Protein backbone atom coordinates (compact mmCIF):
# COMPACT_ATOMS: atom_id res chain seq x y z
CA UNK A 1 0.00 0.00 0.00
CA UNK A 2 1.17 3.48 -0.81
CA UNK A 3 1.14 5.60 2.31
CA UNK A 4 3.49 8.56 2.44
CA UNK A 5 2.40 9.74 5.89
CA UNK A 6 5.05 9.78 8.59
CA UNK A 7 4.27 9.81 12.31
CA UNK A 8 6.68 12.42 13.55
CA UNK A 9 8.13 15.60 12.17
CA UNK A 10 11.60 14.26 12.95
CA UNK A 11 10.92 11.42 10.50
CA UNK A 12 9.74 13.97 7.97
CA UNK A 13 13.12 15.72 7.82
CA UNK A 14 15.29 12.68 8.60
CA UNK A 15 18.33 12.29 6.38
CA UNK A 16 18.92 15.94 5.53
CA UNK A 17 22.68 15.89 5.97
CA UNK A 18 25.50 18.41 6.11
CA UNK A 19 26.04 19.98 2.70
CA UNK A 20 22.58 19.13 1.39
CA UNK A 21 20.72 21.33 -1.06
CA UNK A 22 17.23 22.10 0.22
CA UNK A 23 14.44 23.82 -1.66
CA UNK A 24 11.97 25.51 0.67
CA UNK A 25 8.56 26.53 -0.64
CA UNK A 26 6.96 29.87 0.07
CA UNK A 27 6.96 33.45 -1.08
CA UNK A 28 7.42 35.55 2.01
CA UNK A 29 5.36 33.81 4.64
CA UNK A 30 2.76 32.50 2.19
CA UNK A 31 3.40 28.79 1.85
CA UNK A 32 6.43 28.73 4.12
CA UNK A 33 6.64 25.29 5.78
CA UNK A 34 7.67 26.78 9.08
CA UNK A 35 7.16 23.66 11.20
CA UNK A 36 9.38 21.62 8.84
CA UNK A 37 12.03 24.35 8.91
CA UNK A 38 12.02 24.29 12.70
CA UNK A 39 12.40 20.52 12.61
CA UNK A 40 15.39 21.05 10.31
CA UNK A 41 16.87 23.43 12.90
CA UNK A 42 16.35 20.73 15.54
CA UNK A 43 18.06 18.17 13.30
CA UNK A 44 20.99 20.56 12.88
CA UNK A 45 22.73 19.83 9.55
CA UNK A 46 25.30 22.43 8.51
CA UNK A 47 26.57 23.90 5.23
CA UNK A 48 23.18 23.75 3.58
CA UNK A 49 22.42 25.37 0.25
CA UNK A 50 18.89 26.72 0.51
CA UNK A 51 16.72 27.72 -2.44
CA UNK A 52 13.85 30.08 -1.61
CA UNK A 53 12.51 33.30 -3.08
CA UNK A 54 13.51 35.24 0.06
CA UNK A 55 15.60 34.88 3.18
CA UNK A 56 12.94 34.87 5.89
CA UNK A 57 11.68 37.40 8.41
CA UNK A 58 12.29 38.01 12.10
CA UNK A 59 13.87 35.11 13.97
CA UNK A 60 11.61 32.20 13.02
CA UNK A 61 11.39 29.86 10.05
CA UNK A 62 13.96 30.40 7.30
CA UNK A 63 15.50 33.40 9.11
CA UNK A 64 16.02 31.22 12.18
CA UNK A 65 17.62 28.48 10.08
CA UNK A 66 20.05 31.06 8.68
CA UNK A 67 20.63 32.55 12.14
CA UNK A 68 21.49 29.07 13.42
CA UNK A 69 24.48 29.12 11.07
CA UNK A 70 23.23 26.11 9.11
CA UNK A 71 23.10 27.79 5.71
CA UNK A 72 26.28 28.25 3.68
CA UNK A 73 24.57 29.57 0.58
CA UNK A 74 21.23 31.05 -0.44
CA UNK A 75 19.90 30.87 -3.99
CA UNK A 76 17.11 33.40 -4.18
CA UNK A 77 15.63 36.37 -6.02
CA UNK A 78 14.82 38.79 -3.22
CA UNK A 79 16.95 38.42 -0.08
CA UNK A 80 16.01 41.84 1.25
CA UNK A 81 12.56 42.36 2.64
CA UNK A 82 10.66 43.85 5.52
CA UNK A 83 11.82 42.37 8.84
CA UNK A 84 14.64 40.53 7.13
CA UNK A 85 17.62 41.22 9.36
CA UNK A 86 19.44 37.94 9.78
CA UNK A 87 20.56 37.38 6.21
CA UNK A 88 21.70 40.97 5.52
CA UNK A 89 23.94 40.95 8.60
CA UNK A 90 25.57 37.62 7.76
CA UNK A 91 25.92 38.61 4.10
CA UNK A 92 27.62 41.90 4.91
CA UNK A 93 29.91 40.01 7.28
CA UNK A 94 30.84 37.65 4.43
CA UNK A 95 29.50 34.68 6.35
CA UNK A 96 26.93 33.50 3.82
CA UNK A 97 27.04 33.16 0.06
CA UNK A 98 24.33 34.49 -2.24
CA UNK A 99 23.40 33.44 -5.74
CA UNK A 100 20.96 36.08 -6.93
CA UNK A 101 18.57 34.87 -9.65
CA UNK A 102 15.70 36.77 -11.29
CA UNK A 103 12.43 35.45 -9.93
CA UNK A 104 11.13 34.02 -13.19
CA UNK A 105 14.48 32.50 -14.03
CA UNK A 106 14.59 30.94 -10.57
CA UNK A 107 11.14 29.44 -11.12
CA UNK A 108 12.04 28.19 -14.59
CA UNK A 109 15.35 26.73 -13.39
CA UNK A 110 13.50 24.77 -10.71
CA UNK A 111 10.85 23.65 -13.20
CA UNK A 112 13.61 22.63 -15.63
CA UNK A 113 15.41 20.67 -12.92
CA UNK A 114 12.26 18.72 -12.23
CA UNK A 115 11.54 18.23 -15.93
CA UNK A 116 14.92 16.77 -16.90
CA UNK A 117 15.88 19.91 -18.83
CA UNK A 118 19.52 20.65 -17.96
CA UNK A 119 19.57 24.12 -19.52
CA UNK A 120 17.46 26.65 -21.41
CA UNK A 121 17.75 30.09 -22.94
CA UNK A 122 15.90 33.14 -21.64
CA UNK A 123 15.87 36.83 -22.49
CA UNK A 124 15.64 37.74 -18.80
CA UNK A 125 18.76 39.49 -17.39
CA UNK A 126 20.35 40.20 -20.80
CA UNK A 127 22.37 43.43 -20.60
CA UNK A 128 22.40 43.30 -16.82
CA UNK A 129 25.10 42.28 -14.34
CA UNK A 130 23.21 39.02 -13.69
CA UNK A 131 24.10 37.86 -17.21
CA UNK A 132 27.82 38.42 -16.62
CA UNK A 133 29.91 35.41 -17.55
CA UNK A 134 26.98 33.49 -18.93
CA UNK A 135 26.70 32.03 -22.41
CA UNK A 136 24.71 34.32 -24.72
CA UNK A 137 23.07 33.31 -27.99
CA UNK A 138 20.85 35.23 -30.36
CA UNK A 139 17.44 33.88 -31.34
CA UNK A 140 15.13 35.83 -33.65
CA UNK A 141 17.47 38.80 -33.46
CA UNK A 142 17.50 39.04 -29.68
CA UNK A 143 20.16 37.96 -27.25
CA UNK A 144 19.29 35.28 -24.71
CA UNK A 145 21.26 33.87 -21.82
CA UNK A 146 21.77 30.18 -21.03
CA UNK A 147 20.49 29.19 -17.60
CA UNK A 148 20.77 25.80 -15.89
CA UNK A 149 18.19 23.57 -14.25
CA UNK A 150 18.21 23.39 -10.47
CA UNK A 151 17.65 20.23 -8.45
CA UNK A 152 17.85 19.55 -4.73
CA UNK A 153 18.33 16.73 -2.30
CA UNK A 154 15.21 17.71 -0.40
CA UNK A 155 12.22 19.96 -0.86
CA UNK A 156 10.22 21.17 2.13
CA UNK A 157 6.77 22.51 1.28
CA UNK A 158 3.45 23.32 2.91
CA UNK A 159 0.11 22.43 1.37
CA UNK A 160 -3.54 22.77 2.24
CA UNK A 161 -4.89 19.28 1.49
CA UNK A 162 -3.25 15.95 0.74
CA UNK A 163 -4.09 12.27 0.48
CA UNK A 164 -1.87 9.32 1.37
CA UNK A 165 -0.73 9.06 -2.28
CA UNK A 166 0.76 12.53 -1.91
CA UNK A 167 -1.70 14.32 -4.19
CA UNK A 168 -1.65 17.96 -3.10
CA UNK A 169 -3.84 21.06 -3.16
CA UNK A 170 -2.56 24.44 -2.06
CA UNK A 171 -4.17 27.55 -0.59
CA UNK A 172 -4.35 30.60 -2.87
CA UNK A 173 -0.98 32.32 -3.38
CA UNK A 174 0.67 29.94 -0.91
CA UNK A 175 1.05 27.69 -3.97
CA UNK A 176 3.91 29.77 -5.48
CA UNK A 177 7.12 27.71 -5.76
CA UNK A 178 5.91 24.56 -4.00
CA UNK A 179 4.56 22.53 -6.94
CA UNK A 180 7.73 23.01 -9.00
CA UNK A 181 9.99 22.32 -6.02
CA UNK A 182 8.13 19.04 -5.46
CA UNK A 183 9.27 17.98 -8.94
CA UNK A 184 12.90 19.00 -8.53
CA UNK A 185 13.97 17.30 -5.30
CA UNK A 186 15.18 13.79 -4.67
CA UNK A 187 13.01 13.66 -1.55
CA UNK A 188 9.96 15.89 -1.23
CA UNK A 189 8.62 16.47 2.26
CA UNK A 190 5.21 18.02 2.71
CA UNK A 191 3.42 19.46 5.72
CA UNK A 192 -0.32 19.34 5.08
CA UNK A 193 -3.11 21.11 6.91
CA UNK A 194 -5.59 18.38 6.02
CA UNK A 195 -5.06 14.78 5.03
CA UNK A 196 -8.11 13.30 3.32
CA UNK A 197 -9.05 9.87 2.02
CA UNK A 198 -7.84 8.79 -1.41
CA UNK A 199 -10.56 9.72 -3.89
CA UNK A 200 -11.65 12.88 -2.09
CA UNK A 201 -9.45 15.15 -4.22
CA UNK A 202 -10.96 15.87 -7.63
CA UNK A 203 -8.57 14.37 -10.23
CA UNK A 204 -9.20 17.40 -12.47
CA UNK A 205 -7.97 19.76 -9.73
CA UNK A 206 -4.87 18.01 -8.36
CA UNK A 207 -2.04 20.53 -8.39
CA UNK A 208 0.82 18.21 -7.43
CA UNK A 209 0.28 14.54 -8.34
CA UNK A 210 1.54 12.11 -5.70
CA UNK A 211 4.43 10.87 -7.83
CA UNK A 212 6.34 13.99 -6.77
CA UNK A 213 5.85 13.50 -3.03
CA UNK A 214 7.79 11.24 -0.68
CA UNK A 215 6.82 12.15 2.89
CA UNK A 216 3.71 13.70 4.29
CA UNK A 217 3.25 15.08 7.79
CA UNK A 218 0.02 16.49 9.15
CA UNK A 219 0.28 19.98 10.67
CA UNK A 220 -3.38 20.82 11.16
CA UNK A 221 -2.87 24.26 12.63
CA UNK A 222 0.38 25.79 11.38
CA UNK A 223 1.75 28.93 13.01
CA UNK A 224 1.48 32.23 11.14
CA UNK A 225 4.95 33.62 10.53
CA UNK A 226 3.97 37.29 10.58
CA UNK A 227 2.30 36.84 13.97
CA UNK A 228 5.44 35.25 15.38
CA UNK A 229 7.59 38.02 13.93
CA UNK A 230 5.27 40.65 15.38
CA UNK A 231 5.47 38.94 18.78
CA UNK A 232 9.27 38.88 18.56
CA UNK A 233 9.38 35.09 18.79
CA UNK A 234 12.79 33.46 18.36
CA UNK A 235 13.28 29.86 17.37
CA UNK A 236 14.50 27.75 18.99
Amino acid at each position, binding site marked *: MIDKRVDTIAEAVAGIADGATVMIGG*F*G*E*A*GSPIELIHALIDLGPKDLTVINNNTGSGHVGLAALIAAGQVAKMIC*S*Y*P*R*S*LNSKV*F*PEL*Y*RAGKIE*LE*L*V*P*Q*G*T*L*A*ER*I*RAGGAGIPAFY*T*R*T*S*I*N*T*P*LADGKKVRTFAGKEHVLEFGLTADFALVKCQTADRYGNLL*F*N*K*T*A*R*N*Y*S*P*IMCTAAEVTVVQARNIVEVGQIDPECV*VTPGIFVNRLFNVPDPV*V*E*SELVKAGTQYP
Partner: protein
Amino acid sequence: MSKPGDNPRGWSREEMAQRTALDIPDGAYVNLGIGIPEMVAQFIPAGREVIYHTENGLLGMGPEPSPDNADPELINAGKKMVTAVPGAAFFHHADSFVMIRGGHIDLCVLGALQVSQQGDLANWSTGAPDAIPAVGGAMDLVAGVKKIAVITQHTTKDGHPKLVQACTYPLTGKAVVNRIYTNLAVVDVEDAGFVVAELAPGVDFDFVRDRTEAPIKMRSSS
Protein backbone atom coordinates in the same frame (compact mmCIF):
# COMPACT_ATOMS: atom_id res chain seq x y z
CA MET B 1 19.71 70.98 -13.69
CA SER B 2 17.12 71.20 -10.95
CA LYS B 3 17.85 72.78 -7.64
CA PRO B 4 17.03 71.28 -4.25
CA GLY B 5 14.46 73.52 -2.63
CA ASP B 6 12.24 73.94 -5.71
CA ASN B 7 8.64 74.13 -4.67
CA PRO B 8 6.81 70.93 -5.36
CA ARG B 9 4.90 71.29 -8.60
CA GLY B 10 2.86 69.13 -10.92
CA TRP B 11 1.11 65.91 -10.08
CA SER B 12 0.86 64.29 -6.66
CA ARG B 13 1.55 60.56 -6.26
CA GLU B 14 -2.17 59.88 -6.55
CA GLU B 15 -2.46 62.04 -9.64
CA MET B 16 0.47 60.26 -11.29
CA ALA B 17 -1.29 56.96 -10.65
CA GLN B 18 -4.54 58.42 -11.93
CA ARG B 19 -2.90 59.75 -15.10
CA THR B 20 -1.36 56.34 -15.73
CA ALA B 21 -4.72 54.65 -15.24
CA LEU B 22 -6.25 56.81 -17.98
CA ASP B 23 -4.03 55.08 -20.55
CA ILE B 24 -5.00 51.53 -19.61
CA PRO B 25 -7.57 50.21 -22.07
CA ASP B 26 -10.55 48.02 -21.33
CA GLY B 27 -9.60 44.36 -21.25
CA ALA B 28 -5.92 44.86 -20.51
CA TYR B 29 -3.87 42.35 -18.49
CA VAL B 30 -1.68 44.43 -16.23
CA ASN B 31 1.09 43.85 -13.71
CA LEU B 32 1.61 46.68 -11.21
CA GLY B 33 4.90 47.06 -9.38
CA ILE B 34 5.33 47.92 -5.71
CA GLY B 35 4.78 51.53 -4.56
CA ILE B 36 2.96 54.17 -6.62
CA PRO B 37 2.23 51.66 -9.43
CA GLU B 38 0.05 49.66 -7.01
CA MET B 39 -2.20 52.71 -6.66
CA VAL B 40 -3.05 52.72 -10.37
CA ALA B 41 -5.75 50.06 -9.96
CA GLN B 42 -7.99 52.33 -7.91
CA PHE B 43 -8.11 54.98 -10.66
CA ILE B 44 -9.20 52.91 -13.67
CA PRO B 45 -12.02 54.87 -15.35
CA ALA B 46 -15.50 53.43 -14.90
CA GLY B 47 -16.61 50.97 -17.55
CA ARG B 48 -13.19 49.45 -18.14
CA GLU B 49 -12.49 45.90 -17.02
CA VAL B 50 -8.80 45.41 -16.28
CA ILE B 51 -7.29 42.16 -14.99
CA TYR B 52 -4.35 42.36 -12.61
CA HIS B 53 -1.57 39.83 -12.53
CA THR B 54 0.68 39.43 -9.53
CA GLU B 55 3.75 37.36 -10.27
CA ASN B 56 3.56 35.31 -7.10
CA GLY B 57 0.67 33.43 -8.65
CA LEU B 58 -2.65 35.17 -9.17
CA LEU B 59 -4.45 36.53 -12.21
CA GLY B 60 -7.45 38.59 -11.12
CA MET B 61 -6.03 40.37 -8.09
CA GLY B 62 -8.53 42.53 -6.24
CA PRO B 63 -8.10 45.30 -3.66
CA GLU B 64 -7.03 45.01 -0.02
CA PRO B 65 -9.25 42.71 2.02
CA SER B 66 -11.46 43.78 4.85
CA PRO B 67 -9.96 42.59 8.17
CA ASP B 68 -12.38 39.64 8.43
CA ASN B 69 -11.49 38.60 4.90
CA ALA B 70 -7.71 38.77 5.26
CA ASP B 71 -5.62 35.68 4.50
CA PRO B 72 -1.82 35.83 4.89
CA GLU B 73 -1.72 33.21 2.14
CA LEU B 74 -3.42 35.57 -0.32
CA ILE B 75 -0.83 38.26 -0.99
CA ASN B 76 0.64 40.25 -3.86
CA ALA B 77 4.21 40.50 -5.07
CA GLY B 78 4.84 43.20 -2.47
CA LYS B 79 3.71 40.67 0.16
CA LYS B 80 0.65 42.73 1.10
CA MET B 81 -2.66 40.99 1.63
CA VAL B 82 -5.03 41.27 -1.33
CA THR B 83 -8.23 39.65 -2.60
CA ALA B 84 -9.11 37.63 -5.69
CA VAL B 85 -11.89 38.85 -7.96
CA PRO B 86 -14.55 36.53 -9.41
CA GLY B 87 -12.99 34.86 -12.44
CA ALA B 88 -9.51 34.82 -10.89
CA ALA B 89 -7.03 31.98 -11.22
CA PHE B 90 -4.23 30.77 -8.95
CA PHE B 91 -1.14 29.09 -10.39
CA HIS B 92 2.43 28.23 -9.49
CA HIS B 93 5.47 30.40 -10.09
CA ALA B 94 6.65 28.75 -13.30
CA ASP B 95 3.20 29.18 -14.85
CA SER B 96 3.08 32.76 -13.60
CA PHE B 97 6.30 33.60 -15.42
CA VAL B 98 5.04 31.88 -18.56
CA MET B 99 2.59 34.78 -18.63
CA ILE B 100 5.39 37.31 -18.10
CA ARG B 101 8.27 35.90 -20.12
CA GLY B 102 5.97 34.57 -22.83
CA GLY B 103 4.69 38.03 -23.69
CA HIS B 104 1.12 37.52 -22.56
CA ILE B 105 0.82 40.53 -20.24
CA ASP B 106 -0.12 43.78 -21.95
CA LEU B 107 1.36 46.31 -19.59
CA CYS B 108 3.64 46.49 -16.60
CA VAL B 109 3.93 49.63 -14.50
CA LEU B 110 7.14 49.89 -12.49
CA GLY B 111 9.10 52.31 -10.37
CA ALA B 112 12.55 53.48 -11.44
CA LEU B 113 15.86 54.73 -10.13
CA GLN B 114 16.83 55.91 -13.61
CA VAL B 115 15.49 55.71 -17.17
CA SER B 116 17.80 56.49 -20.09
CA GLN B 117 16.87 58.19 -23.33
CA GLN B 118 17.17 54.76 -25.02
CA GLY B 119 14.61 53.34 -22.61
CA ASP B 120 17.13 51.51 -20.45
CA LEU B 121 15.75 50.96 -16.97
CA ALA B 122 17.62 50.80 -13.67
CA ASN B 123 15.29 49.98 -10.81
CA TRP B 124 16.76 47.14 -8.76
CA SER B 125 20.12 48.18 -7.38
CA THR B 126 22.12 51.29 -6.65
CA GLY B 127 25.24 49.20 -6.93
CA ALA B 128 26.33 50.38 -3.48
CA PRO B 129 28.93 47.94 -2.15
CA ASP B 130 27.12 47.27 1.14
CA ALA B 131 23.65 46.93 -0.42
CA ILE B 132 21.94 43.58 -0.37
CA PRO B 133 21.25 42.87 -4.03
CA ALA B 134 17.62 41.91 -4.62
CA VAL B 135 15.99 41.69 -8.02
CA GLY B 136 12.66 39.87 -7.69
CA GLY B 137 10.70 39.74 -10.92
CA ALA B 138 11.77 43.09 -12.37
CA MET B 139 14.14 41.69 -15.01
CA ASP B 140 11.58 39.12 -16.10
CA LEU B 141 8.87 41.76 -16.40
CA VAL B 142 10.90 44.13 -18.56
CA ALA B 143 12.11 41.23 -20.71
CA GLY B 144 8.67 39.81 -21.34
CA VAL B 145 5.78 42.22 -20.92
CA LYS B 146 4.49 43.85 -24.10
CA LYS B 147 4.60 47.44 -22.85
CA ILE B 148 6.60 48.86 -19.94
CA ALA B 149 5.50 52.04 -18.21
CA VAL B 150 7.38 53.72 -15.40
CA ILE B 151 5.97 55.94 -12.66
CA THR B 152 8.59 58.01 -10.93
CA GLN B 153 9.33 61.43 -9.51
CA HIS B 154 11.06 63.44 -12.19
CA THR B 155 14.06 63.96 -9.93
CA THR B 156 15.49 62.33 -6.82
CA LYS B 157 14.96 63.80 -3.36
CA ASP B 158 18.32 65.51 -3.84
CA GLY B 159 17.14 67.05 -7.10
CA HIS B 160 19.13 64.79 -9.45
CA PRO B 161 17.43 63.95 -12.74
CA LYS B 162 16.11 60.40 -13.07
CA LEU B 163 15.62 60.72 -16.86
CA VAL B 164 19.23 60.43 -17.93
CA GLN B 165 21.49 60.09 -20.95
CA ALA B 166 22.80 56.75 -19.76
CA CYS B 167 21.99 54.88 -16.55
CA THR B 168 24.76 54.86 -13.99
CA TYR B 169 23.08 52.23 -11.85
CA PRO B 170 23.07 48.55 -12.90
CA LEU B 171 20.44 47.91 -15.57
CA THR B 172 17.21 45.99 -15.15
CA GLY B 173 16.89 45.86 -18.93
CA LYS B 174 18.04 47.66 -22.04
CA ALA B 175 15.66 49.62 -24.29
CA VAL B 176 12.58 48.39 -22.48
CA VAL B 177 10.67 51.45 -21.25
CA ASN B 178 7.92 52.82 -23.48
CA ARG B 179 6.39 55.61 -21.41
CA ILE B 180 7.25 57.46 -18.19
CA TYR B 181 4.76 59.14 -15.89
CA THR B 182 6.52 61.66 -13.65
CA ASN B 183 5.17 64.33 -11.34
CA LEU B 184 5.92 66.85 -14.11
CA ALA B 185 5.01 65.17 -17.37
CA VAL B 186 4.12 62.15 -19.42
CA VAL B 187 7.23 61.29 -21.39
CA ASP B 188 7.48 58.80 -24.23
CA VAL B 189 10.70 57.00 -25.05
CA GLU B 190 11.03 57.07 -28.81
CA ASP B 191 13.79 56.22 -31.25
CA ALA B 192 14.83 59.86 -31.13
CA GLY B 193 14.84 59.94 -27.32
CA PHE B 194 12.55 61.52 -24.73
CA VAL B 195 9.39 63.22 -26.02
CA VAL B 196 6.95 64.99 -23.71
CA ALA B 197 3.44 63.85 -24.53
CA GLU B 198 1.75 65.88 -21.82
CA LEU B 199 2.71 68.40 -19.15
CA ALA B 200 1.28 68.40 -15.64
CA PRO B 201 -0.94 71.41 -14.87
CA GLY B 202 1.15 74.45 -14.02
CA VAL B 203 4.36 72.95 -15.38
CA ASP B 204 5.97 74.32 -18.50
CA PHE B 205 8.29 72.54 -20.89
CA ASP B 206 11.38 74.51 -19.86
CA PHE B 207 10.86 73.45 -16.26
CA VAL B 208 10.82 69.81 -17.36
CA ARG B 209 13.79 70.20 -19.69
CA ASP B 210 15.84 71.78 -16.91
CA ARG B 211 15.20 68.76 -14.72
CA THR B 212 16.00 66.18 -17.40
CA GLU B 213 19.59 65.12 -18.01
CA ALA B 214 19.10 63.88 -21.56
CA PRO B 215 17.78 65.86 -24.51
CA ILE B 216 13.99 66.08 -24.43
CA LYS B 217 11.48 67.44 -26.92
CA MET B 218 7.88 68.53 -26.79
CA ARG B 219 5.57 66.43 -28.96
CA SER B 220 4.62 68.66 -31.87
CA SER B 221 0.86 68.89 -32.15
CA SER B 222 -0.08 67.97 -35.70
